[in-house]
Protein backbone atom coordinates (compact mmCIF):
# COMPACT_ATOMS: atom_id res chain seq x y z
CA UNK A 1 0.00 0.00 0.00
CA UNK A 2 2.74 2.45 0.94
CA UNK A 3 4.55 1.75 -2.32
CA UNK A 4 1.41 2.46 -4.33
CA UNK A 5 0.84 5.67 -2.35
CA UNK A 6 4.36 6.71 -3.05
CA UNK A 7 3.95 6.18 -6.81
CA UNK A 8 0.68 8.12 -6.80
CA UNK A 9 2.21 10.99 -4.85
CA UNK A 10 5.26 11.07 -7.12
CA UNK A 11 3.06 11.10 -10.21
CA UNK A 12 0.86 13.88 -8.79
CA UNK A 13 3.83 16.03 -7.80
CA UNK A 14 5.30 15.57 -11.23
CA UNK A 15 2.03 16.58 -12.89
CA UNK A 16 1.54 19.59 -10.62
CA UNK A 17 5.08 20.91 -10.37
CA UNK A 18 6.80 19.95 -13.60
CA UNK A 19 3.90 19.86 -16.06
CA UNK A 20 1.07 22.31 -16.16
CA UNK A 21 2.23 24.35 -13.18
CA UNK A 22 -0.96 23.78 -11.23
CA UNK A 23 0.48 25.16 -8.01
CA UNK A 24 0.80 28.65 -9.45
CA UNK A 25 -2.90 29.41 -9.12
CA UNK A 26 -2.95 28.37 -5.46
CA UNK A 27 0.22 30.36 -4.77
CA UNK A 28 -1.12 33.48 -6.43
CA UNK A 29 -4.39 33.33 -4.52
CA UNK A 30 -2.53 32.99 -1.22
CA UNK A 31 -0.15 35.83 -2.00
CA UNK A 32 -3.03 38.00 -3.13
CA UNK A 33 -4.81 37.42 0.17
CA UNK A 34 -1.68 38.34 2.10
CA UNK A 35 -1.29 41.50 0.09
CA UNK A 36 -4.94 42.55 0.35
CA UNK A 37 -4.89 42.12 4.10
CA UNK A 38 -1.73 44.18 4.31
CA UNK A 39 -3.94 47.07 3.15
CA UNK A 40 -5.76 46.96 6.46
CA UNK A 41 -2.76 48.62 8.11
CA UNK A 42 -2.16 52.34 8.07
CA UNK A 43 1.14 53.48 6.61
CA UNK A 44 3.88 52.92 9.16
CA UNK A 45 1.67 50.75 11.32
CA UNK A 46 2.47 47.08 11.82
CA UNK A 47 -0.12 44.38 12.15
CA UNK A 48 -0.51 42.49 15.40
CA UNK A 49 1.27 39.16 15.44
CA UNK A 50 -2.00 37.33 15.85
CA UNK A 51 -3.56 39.12 12.90
CA UNK A 52 -0.57 38.23 10.74
CA UNK A 53 -0.70 34.60 11.80
CA UNK A 54 -4.44 34.48 11.07
CA UNK A 55 -3.90 35.82 7.57
CA UNK A 56 -1.06 33.40 6.97
CA UNK A 57 -3.29 30.46 7.88
CA UNK A 58 -6.18 31.85 5.88
CA UNK A 59 -3.95 31.94 2.82
CA UNK A 60 -2.80 28.41 3.56
CA UNK A 61 -6.37 27.18 3.92
CA UNK A 62 -7.45 28.61 0.58
CA UNK A 63 -4.30 27.27 -1.00
CA UNK A 64 -5.08 23.84 0.42
CA UNK A 65 -8.58 23.84 -1.08
CA UNK A 66 -7.17 24.60 -4.51
CA UNK A 67 -4.41 22.03 -4.10
CA UNK A 68 -6.72 19.17 -3.24
CA UNK A 69 -9.20 20.09 -5.94
CA UNK A 70 -6.36 20.04 -8.40
CA UNK A 71 -5.02 16.71 -7.12
CA UNK A 72 -8.37 14.98 -7.42
CA UNK A 73 -9.27 16.58 -10.73
CA UNK A 74 -6.19 14.92 -12.28
CA UNK A 75 -8.09 11.63 -12.26
CA UNK A 76 -11.27 13.14 -13.69
CA UNK A 77 -9.98 13.90 -17.17
CA UNK A 78 -10.04 10.39 -18.61
CA UNK A 79 -11.62 8.62 -15.66
CA UNK A 80 -8.26 7.36 -14.42
CA UNK A 81 -10.00 7.12 -11.06
CA UNK A 82 -11.34 3.77 -12.23
CA UNK A 83 -7.80 2.73 -13.03
CA UNK A 84 -6.68 3.60 -9.51
CA UNK A 85 -9.64 1.70 -8.07
CA UNK A 86 -8.62 -1.38 -10.03
CA UNK A 87 -5.04 -1.42 -8.78
CA UNK A 88 -4.04 -4.34 -6.59
CA UNK A 89 -3.72 -2.24 -3.42
CA UNK A 90 -6.25 -0.93 -0.92
CA UNK A 91 -7.99 2.22 -2.09
CA UNK A 92 -6.67 4.00 1.00
CA UNK A 93 -3.39 4.13 -0.90
CA UNK A 94 -5.00 6.87 -2.99
CA UNK A 95 -5.94 8.82 0.14
CA UNK A 96 -2.41 8.49 1.47
CA UNK A 97 -0.79 9.31 -1.87
CA UNK A 98 -2.92 12.38 -2.47
CA UNK A 99 -2.42 13.43 1.15
CA UNK A 100 1.36 13.17 0.81
CA UNK A 101 1.36 15.12 -2.45
CA UNK A 102 -0.93 17.73 -0.91
CA UNK A 103 1.30 18.04 2.14
CA UNK A 104 4.37 18.62 0.01
CA UNK A 105 2.57 21.21 -2.15
CA UNK A 106 1.20 22.99 0.91
CA UNK A 107 4.63 23.12 2.54
CA UNK A 108 6.10 24.49 -0.68
CA UNK A 109 3.40 27.16 -0.82
CA UNK A 110 4.04 28.11 2.79
CA UNK A 111 7.70 28.46 1.98
CA UNK A 112 6.52 31.44 -0.06
CA UNK A 113 3.72 32.60 2.24
CA UNK A 114 5.91 32.79 5.31
CA UNK A 115 8.42 35.33 4.01
CA UNK A 116 5.53 37.11 2.29
CA UNK A 117 3.74 37.60 5.60
CA UNK A 118 6.95 38.84 7.17
CA UNK A 119 7.35 41.35 4.36
CA UNK A 120 3.78 42.49 3.71
CA UNK A 121 2.51 42.36 7.27
CA UNK A 122 5.64 43.77 8.90
CA UNK A 123 6.46 40.86 11.18
CA UNK A 124 9.72 39.45 12.41
CA UNK A 125 10.49 35.93 13.47
CA UNK A 126 10.93 35.63 17.23
CA UNK A 127 12.70 33.14 19.45
CA UNK A 128 9.76 30.73 19.51
CA UNK A 129 10.27 29.69 15.89
CA UNK A 130 11.34 26.04 16.42
CA UNK A 131 8.10 25.12 18.18
CA UNK A 132 6.14 27.09 15.60
CA UNK A 133 7.82 25.13 12.85
CA UNK A 134 6.83 21.88 14.51
CA UNK A 135 3.34 23.26 14.92
CA UNK A 136 3.23 24.25 11.26
CA UNK A 137 4.02 20.68 10.32
CA UNK A 138 1.41 19.24 12.70
CA UNK A 139 -1.27 21.55 11.36
CA UNK A 140 -0.32 20.80 7.76
CA UNK A 141 -0.54 17.06 8.38
CA UNK A 142 -4.06 17.48 9.72
CA UNK A 143 -5.03 19.72 6.82
CA UNK A 144 -3.67 17.18 4.35
CA UNK A 145 -5.44 14.25 6.05
CA UNK A 146 -8.81 15.96 6.05
CA UNK A 147 -8.28 17.64 2.69
CA UNK A 148 -7.41 14.33 1.07
CA UNK A 149 -10.56 12.75 2.51
CA UNK A 150 -12.94 15.54 1.57
CA UNK A 151 -11.19 16.44 -1.68
CA UNK A 152 -12.61 13.22 -3.07
CA UNK A 153 -16.17 14.21 -2.29
CA UNK A 154 -16.49 16.68 -5.11
CA UNK A 155 -15.53 14.11 -7.73
CA UNK A 156 -17.49 14.69 -10.91
CA UNK A 157 -18.90 17.95 -9.61
CA UNK A 158 -18.94 21.44 -10.98
CA UNK A 159 -18.27 24.28 -8.51
CA UNK A 160 -15.85 22.10 -6.57
CA UNK A 161 -13.82 24.84 -4.96
CA UNK A 162 -16.71 26.59 -3.30
CA UNK A 163 -18.23 23.30 -2.19
CA UNK A 164 -15.01 22.02 -0.70
CA UNK A 165 -14.26 25.23 1.17
CA UNK A 166 -17.76 25.39 2.65
CA UNK A 167 -17.45 21.90 4.09
CA UNK A 168 -13.77 21.98 4.91
CA UNK A 169 -13.18 25.33 6.59
CA UNK A 170 -15.45 24.94 9.61
CA UNK A 171 -14.03 21.50 10.28
CA UNK A 172 -10.51 22.93 10.22
CA UNK A 173 -11.27 25.43 12.98
CA UNK A 174 -9.41 23.60 15.78
CA UNK A 175 -6.31 23.33 13.61
CA UNK A 176 -6.47 26.92 12.46
CA UNK A 177 -6.86 28.22 16.00
CA UNK A 178 -3.86 26.15 17.05
CA UNK A 179 -1.80 27.33 14.10
CA UNK A 180 -2.72 30.95 14.67
CA UNK A 181 -1.89 30.94 18.37
CA UNK A 182 1.46 29.27 18.05
CA UNK A 183 2.22 31.18 14.88
CA UNK A 184 1.58 34.49 16.58
CA UNK A 185 3.98 33.42 19.32
CA UNK A 186 6.60 32.92 16.64
CA UNK A 187 5.87 36.47 15.47
CA UNK A 188 6.86 37.52 19.00
CA UNK A 189 3.56 37.67 20.85
CA UNK A 190 3.11 36.42 24.38
CA UNK A 191 1.36 33.10 24.85
CA UNK A 192 0.38 32.56 28.47
CA UNK A 193 -1.27 29.19 27.88
CA UNK A 194 1.88 27.65 26.40
CA UNK A 195 2.30 25.81 23.11
CA UNK A 196 1.97 22.29 24.51
CA UNK A 197 -1.80 22.23 24.83
CA UNK A 198 -2.20 23.58 21.31
CA UNK A 199 0.15 20.91 20.01
CA UNK A 200 -1.97 18.38 21.84
CA UNK A 201 -5.06 19.60 20.04
CA UNK A 202 -3.32 19.56 16.67
CA UNK A 203 -1.90 16.09 17.27
CA UNK A 204 -5.32 14.82 18.34
CA UNK A 205 -6.82 16.29 15.21
CA UNK A 206 -4.13 14.62 13.08
CA UNK A 207 -4.74 11.24 14.69
CA UNK A 208 -8.51 11.55 14.48
CA UNK A 209 -8.63 12.51 10.83
CA UNK A 210 -5.93 10.08 9.75
CA UNK A 211 -8.16 7.42 11.28
CA UNK A 212 -11.25 8.89 9.65
CA UNK A 213 -9.43 9.01 6.32
CA UNK A 214 -8.46 5.36 6.48
CA UNK A 215 -11.93 4.23 7.55
CA UNK A 216 -14.10 6.52 5.46
CA UNK A 217 -12.13 7.01 2.27
CA UNK A 218 -13.18 3.76 0.65
CA UNK A 219 -16.81 4.88 0.83
CA UNK A 220 -16.21 8.20 -0.83
CA UNK A 221 -13.75 7.14 -3.51
CA UNK A 222 -15.64 4.57 -5.47
CA UNK A 223 -16.57 3.60 -8.98
CA UNK A 224 -20.30 3.86 -8.49
CA UNK A 225 -21.77 6.80 -10.35
Amino acid at each position, binding site marked *: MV*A*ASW*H*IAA*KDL*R*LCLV*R*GGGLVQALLLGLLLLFVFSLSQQVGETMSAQGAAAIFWLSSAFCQVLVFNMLYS*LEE*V*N*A*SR*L*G*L*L*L*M*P*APVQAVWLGKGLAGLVLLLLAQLIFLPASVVFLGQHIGAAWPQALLMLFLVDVGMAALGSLLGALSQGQAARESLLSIVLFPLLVPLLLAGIRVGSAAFAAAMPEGAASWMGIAAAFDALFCGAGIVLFSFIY*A*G*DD
Partner: protein
Amino acid sequence: MECLLALSHAGKCYGTRAIFKDVSCAVPAGSITLLAGANGAGKSTLMRVMAGLSRLTAGTVSHHVEAAALGYLGHATFVYPTLSALENLAFWAKLYGLNANEHSLLPLLRRVELERFARERSGTFSRGMAQRLNLARVLLLQPRLLLLDEPATGLDVRSAALLRAEIAAAKERGAGIVWISHDVAGDAPLADSIFLLQDKKLAYAGSAAAFMQGGAVW
Protein backbone atom coordinates in the same frame (compact mmCIF):
# COMPACT_ATOMS: atom_id res chain seq x y z
CA MET B 1 -13.03 -25.58 -17.12
CA GLU B 2 -11.53 -23.18 -14.61
CA CYS B 3 -13.96 -20.51 -13.54
CA LEU B 4 -12.50 -17.01 -13.21
CA LEU B 5 -15.57 -15.06 -12.18
CA ALA B 6 -18.99 -16.08 -10.97
CA LEU B 7 -22.12 -14.05 -10.32
CA SER B 8 -24.85 -15.53 -8.19
CA HIS B 9 -28.34 -13.98 -8.13
CA ALA B 10 -26.73 -10.62 -8.69
CA GLY B 11 -29.01 -7.58 -8.63
CA LYS B 12 -28.34 -3.87 -8.86
CA CYS B 13 -30.61 -0.91 -8.18
CA TYR B 14 -30.01 2.81 -8.29
CA GLY B 15 -32.41 4.04 -5.63
CA THR B 16 -35.72 2.48 -6.51
CA ARG B 17 -34.78 1.80 -10.12
CA ALA B 18 -33.68 -1.74 -10.82
CA ILE B 19 -30.96 -2.10 -13.44
CA PHE B 20 -30.90 -5.90 -13.47
CA LYS B 21 -31.82 -8.65 -11.07
CA ASP B 22 -31.17 -12.31 -10.47
CA VAL B 23 -28.20 -12.59 -12.81
CA SER B 24 -26.21 -15.77 -12.35
CA CYS B 25 -23.38 -16.64 -14.68
CA ALA B 26 -19.79 -17.77 -14.79
CA VAL B 27 -16.81 -16.78 -16.91
CA PRO B 28 -14.48 -19.68 -17.71
CA ALA B 29 -10.81 -19.38 -18.56
CA GLY B 30 -9.77 -19.47 -22.22
CA SER B 31 -13.07 -18.21 -23.58
CA ILE B 32 -14.69 -15.15 -25.08
CA THR B 33 -18.15 -14.15 -23.91
CA LEU B 34 -20.10 -11.42 -25.64
CA LEU B 35 -22.35 -9.38 -23.37
CA ALA B 36 -25.29 -8.23 -25.48
CA GLY B 37 -28.39 -6.15 -24.88
CA ALA B 38 -30.14 -2.99 -25.99
CA ASN B 39 -28.96 0.50 -25.04
CA GLY B 40 -29.53 1.08 -21.35
CA ALA B 41 -30.00 -2.62 -20.63
CA GLY B 42 -27.34 -2.39 -17.93
CA LYS B 43 -24.45 -4.04 -19.75
CA SER B 44 -21.89 -1.48 -18.60
CA THR B 45 -23.21 -1.61 -15.05
CA LEU B 46 -22.96 -5.39 -15.06
CA MET B 47 -19.41 -5.14 -16.32
CA ARG B 48 -18.50 -2.61 -13.61
CA VAL B 49 -19.85 -5.08 -11.10
CA MET B 50 -17.68 -7.78 -12.65
CA ALA B 51 -14.69 -5.46 -12.37
CA GLY B 52 -15.45 -4.75 -8.72
CA LEU B 53 -16.04 -1.08 -9.49
CA SER B 54 -19.69 -1.13 -8.55
CA ARG B 55 -21.45 -2.61 -5.53
CA LEU B 56 -24.22 -5.14 -5.94
CA THR B 57 -27.46 -4.48 -4.12
CA ALA B 58 -28.30 -8.18 -4.08
CA GLY B 59 -26.47 -11.44 -4.67
CA THR B 60 -22.75 -11.99 -4.83
CA VAL B 61 -19.85 -11.69 -7.21
CA SER B 62 -16.85 -13.90 -6.63
CA HIS B 63 -13.49 -13.38 -8.29
CA HIS B 64 -11.18 -16.32 -8.66
CA VAL B 65 -8.36 -14.14 -9.93
CA GLU B 66 -6.42 -11.62 -7.87
CA ALA B 67 -6.89 -7.89 -8.50
CA ALA B 68 -3.58 -7.65 -10.33
CA ALA B 69 -4.75 -10.14 -12.96
CA LEU B 70 -7.92 -8.25 -13.81
CA GLY B 71 -7.87 -6.02 -16.88
CA TYR B 72 -10.60 -3.53 -17.71
CA LEU B 73 -10.79 -1.67 -21.00
CA GLY B 74 -13.71 0.71 -21.45
CA HIS B 75 -14.60 4.00 -23.15
CA ALA B 76 -12.50 5.95 -20.70
CA THR B 77 -8.85 5.85 -21.67
CA PHE B 78 -7.29 6.35 -18.19
CA VAL B 79 -4.66 8.47 -19.91
CA TYR B 80 -2.98 11.39 -18.11
CA PRO B 81 -2.76 13.99 -20.89
CA THR B 82 0.34 15.77 -19.59
CA LEU B 83 2.37 12.57 -19.33
CA SER B 84 3.99 10.96 -22.34
CA ALA B 85 2.84 7.58 -23.58
CA LEU B 86 5.83 5.96 -21.94
CA GLU B 87 5.31 7.76 -18.63
CA ASN B 88 1.66 6.77 -18.58
CA LEU B 89 2.58 3.14 -19.00
CA ALA B 90 5.39 3.39 -16.46
CA PHE B 91 2.99 4.80 -13.86
CA TRP B 92 0.55 1.91 -14.22
CA ALA B 93 3.39 -0.59 -14.27
CA LYS B 94 4.68 0.76 -10.96
CA LEU B 95 1.23 0.68 -9.39
CA TYR B 96 0.99 -2.99 -10.27
CA GLY B 97 4.51 -3.61 -9.01
CA LEU B 98 5.78 -4.45 -12.50
CA ASN B 99 9.02 -3.67 -14.24
CA ALA B 100 8.74 -0.06 -15.44
CA ASN B 101 11.89 0.42 -17.51
CA GLU B 102 11.86 1.38 -21.16
CA HIS B 103 13.10 -2.02 -22.27
CA SER B 104 9.98 -3.74 -21.13
CA LEU B 105 7.56 -0.96 -22.04
CA LEU B 106 8.68 -0.05 -25.55
CA PRO B 107 7.80 -3.46 -27.03
CA LEU B 108 4.28 -2.97 -25.72
CA LEU B 109 4.01 0.38 -27.44
CA ARG B 110 5.29 -1.25 -30.58
CA ARG B 111 2.53 -3.84 -30.33
CA VAL B 112 -0.11 -1.10 -30.35
CA GLU B 113 1.83 0.87 -33.01
CA LEU B 114 2.66 3.80 -30.77
CA GLU B 115 6.41 3.37 -30.52
CA ARG B 116 7.07 6.44 -32.65
CA PHE B 117 5.07 8.55 -30.21
CA ALA B 118 6.47 7.04 -27.02
CA ARG B 119 7.81 10.38 -25.79
CA GLU B 120 4.99 12.58 -27.02
CA ARG B 121 2.55 14.02 -24.51
CA SER B 122 -0.50 11.80 -24.76
CA GLY B 123 -2.76 14.86 -24.59
CA THR B 124 -1.90 15.42 -28.25
CA PHE B 125 -3.10 11.91 -29.20
CA SER B 126 -6.26 11.27 -31.17
CA ARG B 127 -9.02 9.27 -29.54
CA GLY B 128 -7.87 6.15 -31.37
CA MET B 129 -4.24 6.57 -30.26
CA ALA B 130 -5.27 7.19 -26.66
CA GLN B 131 -7.36 4.04 -26.74
CA ARG B 132 -4.44 2.07 -28.14
CA LEU B 133 -2.33 3.38 -25.29
CA ASN B 134 -5.08 2.16 -22.99
CA LEU B 135 -4.87 -1.21 -24.69
CA ALA B 136 -1.13 -1.25 -24.05
CA ARG B 137 -1.85 -0.61 -20.36
CA VAL B 138 -4.10 -3.67 -20.28
CA LEU B 139 -1.62 -5.82 -22.20
CA LEU B 140 1.04 -4.81 -19.70
CA LEU B 141 -0.97 -6.47 -16.93
CA GLN B 142 -1.30 -9.75 -18.85
CA PRO B 143 -4.75 -10.16 -17.37
CA ARG B 144 -6.27 -13.54 -16.67
CA LEU B 145 -9.70 -11.93 -16.66
CA LEU B 146 -10.26 -9.29 -19.32
CA LEU B 147 -13.34 -7.07 -19.28
CA LEU B 148 -14.00 -5.04 -22.42
CA ASP B 149 -16.68 -2.36 -22.55
CA GLU B 150 -17.07 -1.36 -26.21
CA PRO B 151 -13.32 -0.98 -26.53
CA ALA B 152 -13.47 -0.38 -30.28
CA THR B 153 -15.47 2.87 -29.99
CA GLY B 154 -13.64 5.57 -31.91
CA LEU B 155 -11.02 3.22 -33.35
CA ASP B 156 -10.28 3.19 -37.06
CA VAL B 157 -10.46 -0.05 -39.04
CA ARG B 158 -6.78 -0.80 -38.60
CA SER B 159 -6.79 -0.24 -34.86
CA ALA B 160 -9.99 -2.24 -34.46
CA ALA B 161 -8.35 -5.16 -36.26
CA LEU B 162 -5.34 -4.83 -33.97
CA LEU B 163 -7.66 -4.90 -30.96
CA ARG B 164 -9.40 -8.04 -32.17
CA ALA B 165 -6.09 -9.77 -32.79
CA GLU B 166 -5.07 -8.96 -29.20
CA ILE B 167 -8.38 -10.23 -27.85
CA ALA B 168 -7.93 -13.50 -29.74
CA ALA B 169 -4.34 -13.73 -28.49
CA ALA B 170 -5.48 -13.21 -24.91
CA LYS B 171 -7.91 -16.08 -25.28
CA GLU B 172 -5.11 -18.29 -26.63
CA ARG B 173 -3.09 -17.37 -23.57
CA GLY B 174 -5.92 -18.76 -21.43
CA ALA B 175 -7.61 -15.55 -20.37
CA GLY B 176 -11.33 -15.34 -19.76
CA ILE B 177 -12.83 -12.44 -21.69
CA VAL B 178 -16.14 -10.67 -21.32
CA TRP B 179 -16.79 -8.29 -24.16
CA ILE B 180 -19.49 -5.70 -24.72
CA SER B 181 -19.41 -5.11 -28.44
CA HIS B 182 -21.33 -2.56 -30.46
CA ASP B 183 -21.27 -5.02 -33.35
CA VAL B 184 -22.54 -8.30 -31.95
CA ALA B 185 -23.22 -9.85 -35.34
CA GLY B 186 -19.73 -9.00 -36.53
CA ASP B 187 -17.92 -10.15 -33.41
CA ALA B 188 -20.00 -13.25 -32.62
CA PRO B 189 -17.85 -15.55 -34.79
CA LEU B 190 -14.94 -14.78 -32.41
CA ALA B 191 -17.01 -15.57 -29.34
CA ASP B 192 -17.63 -18.84 -27.53
CA SER B 193 -20.73 -17.80 -25.65
CA ILE B 194 -23.18 -14.96 -25.34
CA PHE B 195 -24.94 -13.37 -22.37
CA LEU B 196 -28.04 -11.40 -23.31
CA LEU B 197 -29.44 -8.83 -20.90
CA GLN B 198 -33.08 -8.16 -21.60
CA ASP B 199 -35.95 -6.90 -19.44
CA LYS B 200 -33.53 -6.52 -16.52
CA LYS B 201 -32.74 -10.23 -16.57
CA LEU B 202 -30.19 -12.52 -18.08
CA ALA B 203 -32.41 -13.69 -20.95
CA TYR B 204 -29.85 -15.90 -22.64
CA ALA B 205 -26.58 -17.46 -21.55
CA GLY B 206 -25.16 -20.08 -23.84
CA SER B 207 -23.24 -20.84 -26.95
CA ALA B 208 -22.69 -18.06 -29.45
CA ALA B 209 -23.28 -20.24 -32.49
CA ALA B 210 -26.69 -21.39 -31.26
CA PHE B 211 -27.61 -17.82 -30.46
CA MET B 212 -26.76 -16.56 -33.92
CA GLN B 213 -28.58 -19.43 -35.59
CA GLY B 214 -31.64 -18.42 -33.63
CA GLY B 215 -31.70 -15.41 -35.90
CA ALA B 216 -31.45 -12.68 -33.32
CA VAL B 217 -29.68 -9.73 -34.84
CA TRP B 218 -28.20 -6.93 -32.77
